[in-house]
């Protein structure tokens, strides 16, 4: 066990890339949970991993492949809105099958596949960091703008239609933003770490948030704190980041549940 690597400049870029995404993903997760669409995050992540692997096989940038595949998934989700969770499950099956077949049949894809599925954050470079910063700059103000329509869609579904306005373009924009962020997180953190950061912090924040605004703050803080602990633990114990992050997130939920039940 050695924590010396924590202070190695080599790991600063991966750390800050993940930290930005760990603050952003839970915010998107709050709204996905609000819409009972949190499973969509896993579908986006699976599609992004398959897209990244496919891109690698064709010698294209993996980030671009992942993002394009996740955006396609977001578009499909919007078009097949009535299918709901069925559409996410079908996308997951399709992406998983495609990804595993690529890994099994292409030597280059095998190594990248392990990185995506295990979540080897330490391979992320400055390109990932720049992309994560750009995504935060784009997504955060748009998410603030979309917050009211998304909340209205849950609490007063007829609000816009009764006023002769169509809310679907805004909902579609949210899907695209979620797809974009999850795709970048998938190629940077791995499939399940990205999903854990979308799913678990909002799960806890929904319990403890005294208001929606407080819930958003809680979720981002939980995401960043959990991610930091996972980064330190995986580096210190020389373990793959993805499963350590997922385990820590589950532990955070269990600990918070004990506290919640005592309140």
């Amino acid at each position, binding site marked *: 066990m050695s924590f010396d690597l924590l202070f190695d400049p080599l790991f600063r870029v991966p750390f800050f890339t993940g930290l930005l995404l760990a603050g952003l993903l839970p915010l998107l997760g709050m709204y996905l949970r*609000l819409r009972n669409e949190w499973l969509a995050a896993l579908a986006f992540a699976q599609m992004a991993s398959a897209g990244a692997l496919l891109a690698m096989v064709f010698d294209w940038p993996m980030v671009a492949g992942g993002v394009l595949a996740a955006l396609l998934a977001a578009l499909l989700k919007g078009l097949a809105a009535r299918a709901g969770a069925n559409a996410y499950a079908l996308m997951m099956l399709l992406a998983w099958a495609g990804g595993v077949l690529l890994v099994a049949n292409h030597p280059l894809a095998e190594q990248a596949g392990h990185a995506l599925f295990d979540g080897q954050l330490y391979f992320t470079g400055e390109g990932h960091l720049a992309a994560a910063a750009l995504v935060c700059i784009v997504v955060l103000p748009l998410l603030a703008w979309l917050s*009211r329509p998304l*909340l*209205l869609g*849950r*609490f*007063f*579904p*007829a*609000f816009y*239609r*009764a*006023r*002769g306005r169509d809310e679907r373009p805004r909902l579609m924009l949210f899907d695209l933003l979620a797809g974009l962020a999850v795709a970048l997180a998938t190629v940077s953190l791995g499939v399940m770490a990205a999903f854990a950061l979308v799913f678990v912090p909002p799960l806890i*924040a*929904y*319990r*403890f*948030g*005294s*208001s*929606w*605004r*407080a*819930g958003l703050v809680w979720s981002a803080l939980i995401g960043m704190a959990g991610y930091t602990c996972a980064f330190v633990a995986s580096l210190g114990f020389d373990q793959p980041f993805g499963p350590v992050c997922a385990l820590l997130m589950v532990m955070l939920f269990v600990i918070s549940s004990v506290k919640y039940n005592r309140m």
Partner: protein
Amino acid sequence: MADDFLLRVSGLVAGYAAPVAGPLSFALHRGEILGLAGPNGAGKSTLLKALWGGVKVFEGQIEKVPDLQISHQAQGFDDLRGVPLTGRELLGLTGASADGLPSWLAERLDRRLDRLSGGQLQFLRLWACLTAPADLILLDEPTNNLDRAGVAYLIDWLGHAHSGQGIVIVSHDHGLIDEVCTRVVEVGA
């Protein structure tokens, strides 16, 4: 009065896959509270939804003044348990005002919705529609799930002049209809 109608409905037949309600005809002017009465199953709620485009119109016409802003309070309520939203945040969504809320609710506005009683929550949801910026307010069984204090406050609020708005109410509560409506239209079974 004939010139300042908000809404003019003639021979409206509405439904989903097939027609289930109507025909219905009426005109609504600013300051009026119109009650839609009729037996269960007559399709009152369906006709109310048709006024804003929530269901399919099979026959008839709905004329609205240009840029008519409609606020619709629907029956039923999603399960809100677990969502960390306060009453004040809920009102902010529709642009409703907290001014004029009964004191038993005003003092609880900063609590999460899932910390309110069913009656308080229903009244708050109703209030978010009643006081949202709108020319026409559509209320579908507004007294459902309200406690006695909520019903009394609603009747009192509706009894005050709302000269700039028109209100259409569907309710099985004859007491409410008789007390607040300036006109009642019967919907046939």
